[in-house]
């Protein structure tokens, strides 16, 4: 897409727009209202509702799929269009239940809104209704086909955004429309009705249940009450709920969410979160964000004795052990404790990432990765390395999928654990199921394929050349062959010789340049060259996503250097996925140590003295939905969190006050975040938290990417250190990230060993996994989307110290025995 700005006139208002932008989006960006039901801003137009009809240069077009052209004159309302829209709304109201009071969407229903907006006060059409059922699609999704208006927003978002494509339209079995209507009613309304009468939404796997990641985005986009969260059905009316803008605290994406709270019941007036909503036109939530909200600390009380003990524990502590589920302000307080008392700060989740970042910044001359994920949505070629996309970071996965669907993109996915979902995202995706330990080769291959060779150092160039060799392959070619046949003429009986050209498949030996890197990474070098050429067709901008495997890697320094080299010598936009929720913030704010010393105080981690928001520690602190603060997300943005629920106990700032280091409020620390790391001197209350109509994110502020002293890129020799044997991979199931998601009552994913179907059958129901320095006993669960023999072991229970077992690597050689 080019950046040329064009001018269009909508209802007499001049609007600037990018070339190729849809009219509807131009109108929305300029605060001009065009009704639309089925269109989702970041997805492809569905053209189901047809209500977004406008007149462009005198011609009727659908504003959701008509591109704005320079000088275009657009009228959003004419007599004819209004009549058409009214007829469409009348048709939507046919056979739609009228007991609005019962419905959960009542009050925020788009069908209600547009019916009133278009002044539908009587009905002219009728058709016999069909019985449509009421089903639970999964443990969280509920579908009431009786309320569904088949706008297909759920289908569109599931395909274009989420990538599961778990639902589709199916047959409704409704009556056929009267043919006479075709002439008597407005034609778009007729076409819409004709389609509506034929379809309902069904799971796409042919069963009654969806096979998906249970993200619940379909429930969020549903304009009516047809798709709802099972837990929320009939519990509260939308207007009763207090909407608190905040950010999700589970993964490093820190998506914008609204907590919706209300008094729990008549008998219990304490405020409770009833559900989580998101701005689905601008950001997509995952299942953990939407359903993992009730992890608040309810046991906390102000107990001065406990406070005194906690202060004592911190004074005498040698080490504070914490993880990345922490706000920037808390991290700053811990860092202050380190500076004043010399206590060691240990964080197993972040330390390798912090090291990786510092290696990278030395090589690249800047503190942070160049680009952010938000900038990547316009790219049309995306490469993912070192990230288990489906599990590590939903936002990165949605981006990967969205690029395939919206920008006719292509993608390359490098990961040792095979995933059957990724190739379904698009037609031109190449997956490399390489051995763990071969990550450097993956980066070399990227350099070989994309780098400007003149910018590469000689030794790297030599390595790349050494990986190539001439080989021969057998290709089948179609050759036209001349065949002479004797034909007998039926009438005269004469024999004639006829020559014909007949296609014939001929096998031929061809010499080609084979890339041994491709072979090493598990793909076929014979076909790769052609496939890659196809993938590269018409591609303009490239994105590289770097994941957690690279930080937890014995050669992470070399990897960081290679990434810096890629950034320098290719056109890739590069961004890292911080391993856990506020890993980036912690890496920047805290000065982390390698190992524990002396007695340990755990901050949301088990230790000699445990300070915990889970309600099971020696001293209580507020959970992330009970406190104000900021978190740093993977887009390098510092975003505010607001308190959704009451909290009655002490917080870390109270301990700081007792030690004489505190401030009045926790949020007074926001303006103390280190500016030499790119933070700003902004006050918490001044941070915005929302989106603008033109899709721009207006939340918090973006970290400044400061330049640091550049020490040059050094690429080490690549040894063959691929792991063999039984391998375990540290990876959480989808929707589980930490102890807090585990506490939420709508997250059902178990702490278990996840394996492919075949592997799970070999392993049985319950296994013992032995590491070099300990072991775990786990039940075995099948993850149907995994392929290969590597098993996944989650780390979301901090009490089991899975990080300790794996050490500074995400892969470990293990022995697995049946129990």
């Amino acid at each position, binding site marked *: 897409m080019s950046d040329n700005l064009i001018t269009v006139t909508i209802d007499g208002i001049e609007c600037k727009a990018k070339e190729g932008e849809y009219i509807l989006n131009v109108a929305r960006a300029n605060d001009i209202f065009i009704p639309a039901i089925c269109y989702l801003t970041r997805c492809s137009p569905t053209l189901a509702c047809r209500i977004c009809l406008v007149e462009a240069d005198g011609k009727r077009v659908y504003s959701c799929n008509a591109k704005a052209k320079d000088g275009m004159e657009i009228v959003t309302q004419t007599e004819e269009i209004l009549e058409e829209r009214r007829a469409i709304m009348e048709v939507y109201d046919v056979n739609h239940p009228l007991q609005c*009071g019962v419905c959960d969407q009542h009050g925020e229903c788009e069908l209600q809104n547009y019916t009133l907006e278009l002044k539908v*006060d009587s009905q002219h059409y009728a*058709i016999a209704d069909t019985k449509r059922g009421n089903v639970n699609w999964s443990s969280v999704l509920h579908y009431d086909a009786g309320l569904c208006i088949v706008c297909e927003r759920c289908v569109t978002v599931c395909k274009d955004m989420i990538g599961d494509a778990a639902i589709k339209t199916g047959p409704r079995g409704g*009556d056929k429309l009267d043919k006479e209507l075709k002439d008597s009613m407005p034609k778009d309304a007729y076409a819409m009705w004709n389609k509506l009468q034929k379809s309902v939404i069904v799971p796409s796997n042919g069963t009654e249940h969806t096979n998906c990641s249970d993200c619940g985005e379909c429930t969020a986009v549903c304009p009516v009450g047809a798709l709802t969260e099972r837990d929320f059905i*009939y*519990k*509260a009316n939308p207007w*009763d709920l207090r909407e608190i803008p905040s950010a999700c605290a589970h993964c490093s994406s820190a998506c914008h969410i609204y907590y919706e709270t209300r008094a729990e019941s*008549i008998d219990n007036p304490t405020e409770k979160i009833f559900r989580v909503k998101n701005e689905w036109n601008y950001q997509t939530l995952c299942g953990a964000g939407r359903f993992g909200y009730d992890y608040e600390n309810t046991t906390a009380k102000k107990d001065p004795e406990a406070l005194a003990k906690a202060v004592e524990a911190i004074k005498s502590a040698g080490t504070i052990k914490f993880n990345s589920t922490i706000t920037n302000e808390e991290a700053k307080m811990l860092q202050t404790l380190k500076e004043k008392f010399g206590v060691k700060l240990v964080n197993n989740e972040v330390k390798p990432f912090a090291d990786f970042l510092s290696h990278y910044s030395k090589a690249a001359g800047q503190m942070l990765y160049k680009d952010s994920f938000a900038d990547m949505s316009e790219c049309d070629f995306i490469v993912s390395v070192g990230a288990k996309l489906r599990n590590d970071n939903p936002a990165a996965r949605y981006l990967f999928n969205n690029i395939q669907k919206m920008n006719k993109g292509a993608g390359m996915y490098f990961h040792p654990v095979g995933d059957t979902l990724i190739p379904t995202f698009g037609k031109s995706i190449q997956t490399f199921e390489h051995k763990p330990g071969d990550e450097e080769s993956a980066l070399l291959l990227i350099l070989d394929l994309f780098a400007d060779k003149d910018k590469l150092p000689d030794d790297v160039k030599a390595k790349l050349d050494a990986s190539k060799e001439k080989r021969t392959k057998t290709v089948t070619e179609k050759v036209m062959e001349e065949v002479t046949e004797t034909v007998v003429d039926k009438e005269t009986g004469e024999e004639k010789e006829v020559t014909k050209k007949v296609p014939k498949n001929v096998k031929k030996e061809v010499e080609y340049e084979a890339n041994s890197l491709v072979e090493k990474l598990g793909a076929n070098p014979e076909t790769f060259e052609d496939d890659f050429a196809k993938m590269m067709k018409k591609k303009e901008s490239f994105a590289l996503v770097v994941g957690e495997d690279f930080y937890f890697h014995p050669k992470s320094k070399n990897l960081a250097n290679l990434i810096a080299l890629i950034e320098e010598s290719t056109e890739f936009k590069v961004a890292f996925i911080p391993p856990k929720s506020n890993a980036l913030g912690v890496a920047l704010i805290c000065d982390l140590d390698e190992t524990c010393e002396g007695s340990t105080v755990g901050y949301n981690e088990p230790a000699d003295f445990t300070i915990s928001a889970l309600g099971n520690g020696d001293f209580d602190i507020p959970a992330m939905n009970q406190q104000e603060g900021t978190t740093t997300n993977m887009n390098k943005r510092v975003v505010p969190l607001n308190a959704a629920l009451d909290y009655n106990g002490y917080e870390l700032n109270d301990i700081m006050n007792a030690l004489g280091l505190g401030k009045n409020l926790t949020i007074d620390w926001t303006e103390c975040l280190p500016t030499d790391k790119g933070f700003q001197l902004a006050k918490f209350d001044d941070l915005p938290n929302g989106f603008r109509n033109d899709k721009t994110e207006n939340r918090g502020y973006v970290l400044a990417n400061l330049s640091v002293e550049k020490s040059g890129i050094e690429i080490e020799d690549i040894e063959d250190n691929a792991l063999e044997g039984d391998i375990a991979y540290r990876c959480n199931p989808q929707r589980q990230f930490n102890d807090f998601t585990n506490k939420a009552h709508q997250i059902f994913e178990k702490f278990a060993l996840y394996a492919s179907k075949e592997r799970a059958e070999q392993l049985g129901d319950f296994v013992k996994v032995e590491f070099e320095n300990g072991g775990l006993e786990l039940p075995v669960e099948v993850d149907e989307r995994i392929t290969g023999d590597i098993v996944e072991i989650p780390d979301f229970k901090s009490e089991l110290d899975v990080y300790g077992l794996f050490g500074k690597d995400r892969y470990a050689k293990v022995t697995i025995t049946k129990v």
Partner: protein
Amino acid sequence: MSLDKLKNRNVGVQNYKMLDLGHTPESGWGKFKQVLKRSVKLELFVGLKVTIREMFKALFMGEMHTVKYPFEKLPISPRYRAIHEMKRLLESGHYRCIGCGLCEKICISNCIKMDTRYDEEQRKEVSDYTINFGRCIFCGYCAEVCPELAIVHGGRYETASEQRASYSNFEDMLTPMDELMNQKEYPGFGAPTPVADKNIKKTPLAY
């Protein structure tokens, strides 16, 4: 506007009219004269005459006007707005309330609360409902907004009790099952008007 008008700050007294009420005596002699005049004229008995006449009528002629409350009660207007009643459906006996929450929303003194849930028959069940009568100002908005005519005002105006919470249980407000046949529609605000049938546009049906 001229400055004079602005400078006149004696606002509001310009149009008063003084009534001719005579004048109150100020001297001692004047006051004494007034008392003497009123006593000798026996104005007291003029008033007593009416009382005694009515007493005779009540005692001896059977024209008693006193209502012996609480043993007797006067009939009140059917549109009187007192303690709420929850109506039932005549056919099934099920309560009419669908749990839409509009009464809760419209209540200007914020005294209605309800809890709803998804029940086993896939319906919205009102699991708890309460009105705080200590706060209710009996404005009638809840009855007016109710789409099902489920909550209406009744005629029960005696609201003295040991507990403010009395009467506020859903079960207490519901029409008792044995009284179902005697359940009457409320004719007040929110009820269909006599001309409602005429004003309704009928939705076509394809059956």
